[in-house]
């Protein structure tokens, strides 16, 4: 059971909306370690680490880490080459 003790990037939707005005789960990220490119929604998210830790589903390296303190949010993106956010002209009711 311990080896399935994670959810996925879908659960980052709420915490990320505190930081950004767009939905990050539909964004695409590239892993800096193995180069795998895919939706943020499909990363493996571990909640029992300090903060939320998102790992690459291909190589298990940490891609993003979000730590919330009472006064700030720390977003560590060192495991990502880029995050590409879809920006349609209009996206009714999609947030």
């Amino acid at each position: 059971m311990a080896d399935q003790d994670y959810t996925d990037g879908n659960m980052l939707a709420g915490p990320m909306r505190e930081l950004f005005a767009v939905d990050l789960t539909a964004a695409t990220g590239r892993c800096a370690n193995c180069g795998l490119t895919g939706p943020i929604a499909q990363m493996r998210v571990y909640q029992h680490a300090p903060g939320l830790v998102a790992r690459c589903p291909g190589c298990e390296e940490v891609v993003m880490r979000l730590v919330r303190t009472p006064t700030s949010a720390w977003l560590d993106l060192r495991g990502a080459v880029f995050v590409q956010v879809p920006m349609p002209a209009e996206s009714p009711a999609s947030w």
Partner: protein
Amino acid sequence: MARAAVPGRLNRGASWRVAQLVESREETGTARTLVLEVPDWPGHTPGQHVDVRLTAPDGYRAERSYSIASAAAGNRIELTVQRVPDGEVSPYLIDVFSVGDPVEIRGPVGGWFVWRSADPAPVLLVAGGSGIVPLMAMVRARRAAGSRVPFRLIYSVRTPRDAYFADELRQRARDDGGLDVSYVYTRETPDGWPSAAHRIGVADVNSHGWPAELEPTCFVCGPTGFVETVADILVALGHDSRRVKTERFGPTGG
């Protein structure tokens, strides 16, 4: 305590708002459907979820995600919560949270694990246990939109008594046209069921899903282990992994 929500368009979904429980009904022996009234609810897309936040008298807070089970309709949303024994939040929502009580929610959130009724691709839904919840929102939204997009649902449950929305699914499969529902039982089957209880496998997905050549959009939701098994099967059957959308609810219990 109730902070006013700021429903400006840019921070829609970003701030906490206070919802009120207006109705609660038993879904199965271990799950309840909670009907919440949310002032200024902006509407949602099926597949989206909300985060629920509980605050103890000493200030300790717990946050969990719950998928929206209902199709968009006014200021009401429905969540269906399964009791996780020894859980912090789900037993509270099922046993203690009562009609008239407030609760803080954030959402709707999530723009990837969603079905849009304008998408013409056939849809395969595969649910394990409570993973039916966001998929049920898709089934309900399909009906609400009068959509003819063909849907197939494969629903894995432990026993017939553990199936959520069983009556409604029977009725929708009969009346909606183009919705097929099939079950996989992992522990106990109904009387006269043609196969023995078993975990979902290639044969189930192959015979009750769509052939990969039809390029269906696949939505798989449930406990982490279940989702991984089904996603692997779909890819092995030739489905493009980009068309296999998954949502993991957490550890595979019991």
